[in-house]
């Protein structure tokens, strides 16, 4: 069963290009200096089109999480159990992600995690794992 890939916009392609190279890019506004997530056509703070990208450290903390054991879409059933989380990047950005490379019962609030990239049909989704797991 085909798993979904991100439905991108022209202005988010740089983000997904970065993930192919193992880089987590964050969009920034060169005028008001805002860090922007998710990427936009114009800065959501000041409507400037003068936008650029910086590479994030890839370090984050888990804000919240939920581990799924059943009742997910059939296309994801083969991955159960899996943990969805909101993580807060060091750069002040919050993202939805998966927490991998650990048992669900070992996941905790405010746990330090780091990015890794999971390939799916040519896209590389930013997943996170506990920092101690190298």
């Amino acid at each position, binding site marked *: 069963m085909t*798993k*979904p*890939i*991100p*439905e*991108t*916009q022209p202005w*988010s392609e740089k983000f997904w290009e970065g993930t192919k190279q193992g880089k987590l890019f964050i969009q920034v506004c060169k005028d008001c200096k805002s860090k922007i997530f*998710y990427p936009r056509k114009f800065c959501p703070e000041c409507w400037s089109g003068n936008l650029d990208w910086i590479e994030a450290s890839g370090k984050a903390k888990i*804000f*919240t*999480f*939920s*581990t*799924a*054991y*059943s*009742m*997910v*879409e*059939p296309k*994801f059933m083969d*991955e159960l159990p*899996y943990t*969805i*989380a*909101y993580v807060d990047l060091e750069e002040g950005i*919050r*993202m*939805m*992600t*998966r927490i991998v490379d650990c048992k*669900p019962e070992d996941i905790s*609030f405010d746990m330090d995690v780091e990015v890794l990239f999971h390939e*799916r049909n040519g*896209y590389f*989704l930013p997943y996170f794992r506990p920092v101690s797991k190298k």
Partner: protein
Amino acid sequence: MSKGKIAIIGIGEVPTRNMPERTQWDIIYDTCMEAVKDSGLHKNDIEGVVSATPQAQPKIAAELSFGKLPEELGLKGCKDTVSCNAGGASTSNCLRMAEQWIESGIAKAVIVQHVTLHSTISLVDQINFFAKAGIDLQWEYPFGPTYNIIMGLMANRFMHDNGTTPLEMASVVTALRSWASRDPNSILYGKEVPSPEKVLASDLLNTPLHKRESNILGDGGCAMVVVSAEDAKKMKRPAAYKLGESVRYFSGTCVMRDFDKVFEGFTVTAKEAMAQAGITKKDVSLWNCYLAYPLGHPMMAEMLEVAPKGEGGKYFLEGRMSFGGDIPWSTIGDAPGRGHTGSGVSAATYVETARQLMGKAGERQVKNCKYVFQNTAGGSGFNQISSIWGKEIK
């Protein structure tokens, strides 16, 4: 956003059940005709029709959007019709449209209606619809979230920050089902009310949500007749007057939702709506809360300042929000008690608000029901609309 401009003077509803043998139009006839009859008006007095667009059912959505309902029901006095959708907040917007038409003189009496037939939608289409609606297709959907997981993310953090226990969370189901078991319009009418322990013993779907804490999809429909507050007063019939309303937008994408802003939005909109109505929380006879999942109710109780911070779950576990408790709360049992009819749960909640204020709620009737707090929220929680409805207007 205005005090005392409209009133609900007629209600009609079919019980929430699995009814694949019925068509949407079959249900629309029943609910609209019952609401008009209940209002004491003639069908040709209805000058406007506003429908909540059933998004998951494209055929009926198109028929309603393109004006079929007044023709089908022979509403000869109808001047206009429209449908609108804002997820669970759809009915609030339907009522706002009715209010605008009434205030501007377009219509003197307006039907607001909703219908959903989940049982005629294939399982594949249901799964596809609920997997994507309200979930961002670029930044969320590829990771495999569901509505259950989105609620789990919020509930887990709330429990962590507040010390709310799984047993307290489970007791919300007990409270909601205690009302639903006494509601002839509920899919769980007459059914056993599970104890919190039994709720927790059911399968864990995703942390911290158990099977009995999720929703049963159902078919349903309801309708309301709305007129100006002035006309309602002249008609000398039981009515529910809209006395105040306030709203805050949070975010369209789940992950962009700042939890603190959401909590603040719940509190502030409730206070603003009460201020417009000229009442305080002590005057509220019924907290008719709509959240679609039980896990949000302790949070709601705390944000509305009905329970002190950290004690929302405790209040539910003590039975204070259950049938017979001292804080009447969600008297149709919200979606977990009523059965989930898509955008229709909020419509059913408005009908219940009117029913309680009209004194027609039977066994569930809240004594001396004078003021009702009623909220709605759209999509996966993009906004919060708080409103106050009253039995009378000065």
